[in-house]
């Protein structure tokens, strides 16, 4: 049970305080309700590029990092398809430095042409490092485009193509900032060795006078129900054939989300999972196999991906996966297996909560979803899932018309393997 208090400033900034007197540290987490899904199709990668620019100096403070480090703090940020999160950890005595820095960059950035020039280059190198200069690095670009035809989840947070990042202009940066980086589109979580009254005072002092801004009303196309199986085959100079399959699942706030999450655990969680046990160990068709889901707020994807053993065809591997999914659709899982998945979930949530940073981040996440209190209710939602729910969800999700399949064929043979 995570205890917290919540209040809202007049400008609409939601503030959550989680006291923990056992630590000498404090965490300050600012989450903005904007992600890659809010980008325009011809200007993708912008939310993430923007995250980089948030470190290029704000209206009154030339450098973000140095004053924070001078106060003994460290920080980072990430962008997803749904949201952008900035977080710092600092000795609790110096928490006001965090308020000062974060409030100034919420007030306004420095909008510095040089910073944009450099960060464009940095992000392009990041793009290359993770998605181009890497075997199988382009898979998720392809798979998202295959599975999503309308919804902006069809592109990655890094961007659809390098040119979108290369062409970003300072005016785009300004427009993006004033549209999304406002108190009414943000959540502030302060956690650690601080008090509620201290946070109230500091939040009022540093964030209170920032103009509220307009509430961004999200109006993005939702993905229509897929009517036909989608298929793509690509070839590349990789050593192994690989198979990727994904299926549309529910939105994050739907009860079905928890069922889908448990299904991925049954199929792909750990070495006692069904896919690993059957396809890697018993049948030895794959050298590795995973099952997971995107964890997105709008309707997400559940996916399976595996690398085939040399000599096994992708088609053979795919047939074996279908066999496992057929079992999921015809036989109810045993009470023992269900209990195992619930135990794993309980344990996972308990370990996540050890870290102060994780607790702060989770509170922000749940508040963004609609209610921080979900954090304390989630375990019950998992416990409520029955074997019948899982059977029903498998029958609903694992149908061909709901599926996208990508064959990733190797054009190189392993040295001396032929």
């Amino acid at each position, binding site marked *: 049970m995570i205890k917290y208090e919540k209040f809202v400033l007049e400008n609409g900034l939601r503030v959550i305080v989680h006291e923990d007197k056992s*630590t000498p*540290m404090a965490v300050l987490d600012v989450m903005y309700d904007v992600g890659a899904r809010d980008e325009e199709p011809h200007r993708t990668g912008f939310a993430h590029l923007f995250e980089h620019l948030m470190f290029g100096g704000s209206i009154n403070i030339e450098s973000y*990092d*140095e*004053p924070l*480090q*001078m106060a*003994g*703090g*460290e920080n980072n940020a990430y962008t997803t398809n749904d949201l952008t999160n900035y977080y710092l*950890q600092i*000795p609790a*005595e*110096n928490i006001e*430095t965090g*308020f*000062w820095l974060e*409030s*100034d960059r919420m*007030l306004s950035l420095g909008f510095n042409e040089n910073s944009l020039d*450099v*960060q464009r*280059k*940095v992000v*392009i*190198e990041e793009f*290359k*490092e993770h998605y181009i*200069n*890497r*075997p*199988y690095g382009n898979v998720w670009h392809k798979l998202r485009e295959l599975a999503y035809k309308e919804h902006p989840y069809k592109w990655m947070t890094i961007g659809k193509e390098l040119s979108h990042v290369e062409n970003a202009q300072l005016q785009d940066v300004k427009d993006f900032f004033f549209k999304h980086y406002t108190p009414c589109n943000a959540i502030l979580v302060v956690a650690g060795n601080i008090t509620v009254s201290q946070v109230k005072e500091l939040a009022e*002092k540093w964030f209170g*006078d920032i103009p509220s801004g307009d509430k961004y009303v999200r109006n993005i196309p939702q993905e229509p129900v897929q009517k036909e199986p989608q298929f793509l085959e690509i070839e590349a*100079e*990789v*050593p*192994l054939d690989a198979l990727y399959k994904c299926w549309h699942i529910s939105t994050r706030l739907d009860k079905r989300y928890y069922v889908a999450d448990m299904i991925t655990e049954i199929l792909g969680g*750990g070495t*006692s999972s069904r896919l690993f*046990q059957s396809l*890697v*160990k018993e049948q*030895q068709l794959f*050298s*590795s196999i995973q099952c997971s889901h995107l964890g997105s707020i709008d309707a997400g994807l559940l996916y399976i991906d595996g*690398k085939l*053993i*040399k000599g096994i065809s992708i088609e053979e591997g795919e047939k074996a996966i279908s066999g496992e999914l057929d079992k999921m659709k015809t036989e109810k899982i045993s009470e023992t297996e269900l209990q*195992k998945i619930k*135990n*794993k*979930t*309980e*344990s996972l949530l*308990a*370990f996540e*909560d*050890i870290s*102060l940073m994780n607790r702060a981040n989770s509170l922000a996440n749940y508040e963004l979803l609609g209610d921080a209190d979900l954090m304390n209710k989630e375990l019950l939602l998992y416990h409520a899932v029955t074997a019948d729910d899982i059977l029903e969800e498998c029958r609903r999700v694992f149908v061909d018309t709901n599926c996208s399949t990508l064959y990733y064929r190797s054009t190189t043979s392993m040295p001396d393997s032929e």
Partner: protein
Amino acid sequence: MPDRKIAPPIKDAIEFNIALNPCTRFSLSNGAPVYYINDGAEEVAMIEFVFDAGNSYENKNGVAATTNYLIKNGTSKKNAFEITESFEYFGAYLSRACHNETTTITLHCLSKHLKELLPVIRELITDSIFPEDELEIFQQNSIQRLSVNLLKCDFVANRLIDQYLYGPQHPYGKVSTKEDIEALNQEDLTAFFSQFYLNAKCRIFSAGKLPADFEQLLEKYFGDLSFNKDLPAFMQNRELATQKKYRINNDENGVQGAVRIARPFPNRHHPDFKKVSVLNTLFGGYFSSRLMSNIREEKGYTYGISSHLQNHIGDTAWIISTEAGKDVCEATIEEVHKEMKLLREELIDAEELLLVKNYMMGVNLGHLDGPFHVIARWKSLILNNLDEHYFYESLNTIKTISAEELQELSNKYLIPEDFFELVVI
């Protein structure tokens, strides 16, 4: 309205008195030392068994790592699935890792399940049989994984730079090839298991909410095992490569190069180590470091560049590493040399020095938060044959080191000719 131009007052982190909370120590009746911290807000626990069974002790490549990896893949009573299931049913995670000197077997679980899981760990470390078919699957999958990794410039660069720094025969420098993996057999593993696990040098670390009878439980399940064998200290001289500069073309279509610039460096017992840790942070160890400020934040050559002292118990190395655009790899190396020169020739100004000191102290404070962090720090000290004095001396070094000392160290160590230089595209 606050004046936003003026930073709020701070307490300089160098004024913090950071303490390393003690850990409880006791010995099993077989002499194996146990270090633990019974504390924490969540009902979770961690226990780690550290064996002196790392790859320094093998005489055939890959035997130590494979023995460690397959230790949960079969005993005379349980097959691999049953073993995994006995942990995963309780939502527990059993992980294992092989390092140069040590291997670890680590359990994370809800506190309430510790009692049921300790006997399973006993079974693994006393009765593993390394079934032939499990080894075959492991070999096949490892070879496939290796074939993918060998396409990655960073993976290839990390293997090569270690070979230059230590020599291809040295435990820190040797790598596993396809042929090495193919050559492994069951006898190798059972022999290694019997030599280094059944007659072991084992130390135990634990943290979290532990049961009241924790010590008795450990004694019950592990007190009778041969855990206190004296193994010969590992001695191997490093063999530095004679050639200093390397340019490797690993991928014709590569758009980035993995750059590694590295020099040998003594281990933690050398008087310069603690001081150079500060110099390293300033040079390439944090976001505002000289290397990041210049090569990422000014030039935009890379997504990230860093330097670090390798985490070895024996003699180690100081490494600068980055993945940079193919066309700017040479320019990146040139800038690294410029930054070395600046540190040799110009005194660090007071503000930057205070910045790096405060940052390091703050990070130290943050990384000692909670029992899991604290036991990890104790483990690091103990495995390196150090004690809390080293911890406090390190903090004191951060607080007191001067710009003059850092310049002197730069002149001693940041000499481009002493460094190996590698680009893998």
